[in-house]
């Protein structure tokens, strides 16, 4: 069995947001203007959230990078009237952009608020179009998008492995966020393959998942020392 999943070590994460920016770069995520950002329409499939406790000088702050949890029991896909969001055989929750009718029901159903809506279409200057990643289709306006676990990289890696006539290796398929993380806080792989690091880390004593009690069975684990 293959179940792709991610482990994020919060004890290593410095909240630098490289993952966030790498995701925007890799996945052709449009940026929005100040007015739109003020209105709460910034798109960030990976988002480094923060939590502040205490006043000066006893302040502390947690950082938590948050992609889509790729729930094994995803509340978002159940509600989509047109099956524009689905979970595939390897546990990746995807979006079918050309089919989505833009009702945003899935966005409301996701307890992790990881779905983003294209309120307007993307607006790239001609020069900016040059850096778009040809492996990832840009989304038109009016549809929902979210972290795909960089699914296009899996397809590419599979293709390469097939051409070279070998099995897919752990390092062949790494999403953009894990690739850039300067502290190696993001580990990605097959949760069901004991040779992959995630398989071991997910059972670490420090491992938790966000709102596990909801029964969504997220495949993104967080490591954090308690106490």
């Amino acid at each position: 069995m293959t179940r792709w999943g991610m482990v994020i070590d919060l004890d290593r994460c410095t909240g630098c947001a490289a993952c966030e920016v790498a995701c925007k770069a890799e996945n052709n995520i449009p940026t929005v203007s100040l007015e739109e950002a003020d209105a709460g329409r910034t798109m960030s499939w990976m988002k480094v959230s923060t939590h502040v406790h205490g006043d000066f000088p006893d302040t502390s702050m947690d950082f938590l990078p948050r992609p889509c949890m790729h729930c094994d029991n995803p509340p978002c896909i159940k509600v989509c009237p047109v099956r524009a969001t689905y979970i595939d055989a390897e546990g990746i929750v995807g979006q079918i952009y050309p089919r989505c009718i833009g009702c945003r029901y899935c966005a409301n159903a996701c307890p992790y608020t990881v779905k983003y809506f294209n309120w307007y279409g993307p607006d790239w200057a001609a020069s900016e179009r040059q850096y778009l990643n040809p492996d990832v289709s840009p989304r038109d306006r009016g549809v929902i998008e979210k972290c795909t676990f960089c699914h296009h990289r899996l397809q590419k890696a599979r293709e390469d492995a097939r051409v070279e006539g070998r099995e897919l290796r752990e390092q062949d398929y790494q999403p953009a966020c894990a690739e850039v993380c300067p502290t190696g806080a993001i580990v990605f792989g097959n949760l069901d393959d004991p040779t992959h690091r995630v398989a071991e880390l997910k059972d670490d004593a420090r491992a938790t998942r966000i709102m596990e009690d909801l029964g969504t069975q997220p495949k993104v684990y967080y490591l954090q020392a308690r106490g």
Partner: protein
Amino acid sequence: MGSTRREFLWTVGAAATAVGLRWSQDVVWEADVLDDPGWAPGVEERFNSACLICPSRCGISARVVDGRLVRLVGSPLHPMNRGGICPRGIAGVQMLYHPDRVIHPLARVGARGAGEWREISADDALDQVSERLQALRAGGRPEALAVLSGFSAASMQDVWQQFLRSYGSPNYVADDYYDGSSAVMALMHGIRRAPSYDLERADFVLSFGAPLFESWWSPLQAFVAYADPGAERPARPRFVQVDTRFSRTAARAHEWVGIRPGTHAVLAMGMAYVLIRDELYDAAFVARHVSGFEDFTDARGQRREGYRSLVMRRYRTEEVSAVTGVPVERITSLARALARSEAPVVVPGSDVLHAPNGLLAGVAVHSLNVLMGRVNRAGGVMFGSDAPVEALPTPAADATSRAGLARQPVLNGMPPFGDGDRPVRFAEAMAAADGPEIDTLLLYYANPLASSARPEAWRQALDRIPFVVSFSPFLDETASQADLVLPDLLPYERWQDAPGSPTYPYATWGLVRPVVEPPEGPVHTGDAVLALARRLGGPMAQSLPFESFEALVRARARGLFRAGRGMLLGDAFEREQHRAMEARGWWLAEHTEFEAFWDALVDRGGWTDLFYDTTDPAGIAGTSDGRIELLPRALDEALREVAPERALHVDVGPTDDGGTHDFPLRLIPYRVSTLSSGTVALERWLAEQPGLFPDVHWVPWVEVAPATASDLGFDDDTLVWVVSAQGRYRARVKVFPGTAPENVCAPYGLRHADGELANPLALLDGSTDVLTGLPSWFSTFVRLERA
């Protein structure tokens, strides 16, 4: 009749509906479909290179598809960043494809600053400059040429200097991130070099205000040390951040010590007190390598109090606690933690020196490293070496250049121990009505109208300079006021060398190479200087005999080829192997031909030498007696002369008395980690979350404590003026519990949507440390007014 009218209405209605439906179909959905970018399965390439965005100069790897730069990631071969990269580095693609980039050389048409330009060819632009320079020389005034260079990586700096020297001008003004730390080293160790920190082998990193995880010299070096990705050290080092501001570093350090502004050095002295009192310092090291610890008799025959007595007398923990606001137990436990660690290191932030007492404070903080014997040791403070690149030819000279060089430079009267804030001093000298005569100013990587703390002085200075040329690829504030703009290529289009951050102890020489074809129009400024030298001929051409900057970089790499040490950048295994071999004194040449070496160098993206010899006593001190001076004699002498009221290890704290009625809040300026250049607008990806706060975007903000905000009646996003006695700027309020109620933390270099700059540095009170010339950054007080 009734029925015909009805029929008519029906017909019209139906027609209108049909037309409407057709229309809405066309206008709406079809028009919105994304243009087909014309993507076919592309040709993919990957190139290793180096990032030039900040002084860290990480190794990067560029993904290029059909000649377009698509992604930048960290190069796993680079020993310092090991595959990691920061958001700024990633956003380099948005810098390259920035819509505001200047693609054509521009000659001013209307009045200065009117924004009327004529596009000219690069050749014409170079002609204009070389004619001007030729004329200056012919008129016997080569010194009337000045160059202001902001960030100059390695060879670019050498090329400018080489050029000016052979041309005959002493007016090279570099703002090469001077932070005064080399002055501290020169005074205490007799080694004039910025210190390096072996963070990757340290187990306790105590930072005094150094923004290690933000805008430090090399945030990547700090990240790698913090997490040690890959190698999985059993215990990762402990980070403690002493800082006024609750920064990202403070947030992610294992411990944050919130401290009163400007009192970092006092805390350091308090820790020294505990270390000495409890005999926790490295007595053997001090005895062997340090002078000035015990009382002594000086050259004048006077009995002097040594470091030990001074500390014991003046820095009892209660007193230190009262000044710094750090509880006594905390001071003690910090000192003990430092002593308990196997390989601790103390990292003074450059801001320790940006204070009226800065140099003394810098000496005080670094003294902890000395006391603990953490110099020239694994995991401690080291003095790295430069990569052994080939030197440039000795600059040639003729009579004109000799005469010019002999004339008085604009920047004269250096502070005794430093060279702080050269651009400001240059502008102030120029602004004076009877100031020096400069005819031509070349601006390289410099935008002083926006970055200087004295923009007014710069405006006046520019008014007095007849010919101003900017090499900026963007029409920044100063380029807009120039007479000629000859845009540089961006780093992804050019050749350049990129030596590692000075804080990284291992000599590393990254190689920046073009990964995409440059557009027609811009010219690599390095090539422009070489072309100017050729056109001017004479000593200039002799001193810079390279047909291109690529050839120059290549020529310099010959030094590496011949060095008989080091390695081409390689993966973790290769690195370990190399380190282990060199430690045993072995070295194997991989290449026998330079051509093959060069090709491999380009392929790998650089060179490094990971061996550092901790047994070489020259790495401890280069003073006459080979000892580290806890009470540097030279400093002592200088104090007598320029600041007799100040004493070493005594005047290390703040010199102000806090806020006033009109200006109650202290301004704490800081640099956000997402800023790639002080004065270019943030790249769009970064602007969406430039700081610590997920809900702060695009617009400059100031951090205000909740209590302060509620007193003033401000909320998140209230637009305010930050007002000091010197000026004001606009920003949005961010209410943040990590900010002390008496402070306002102000990120600098950010812009409003309309381009208006928010520059807290222009609000500074202008006080400096007379010993280094560095401006004081934390002694200005402001008030906030609703805008």
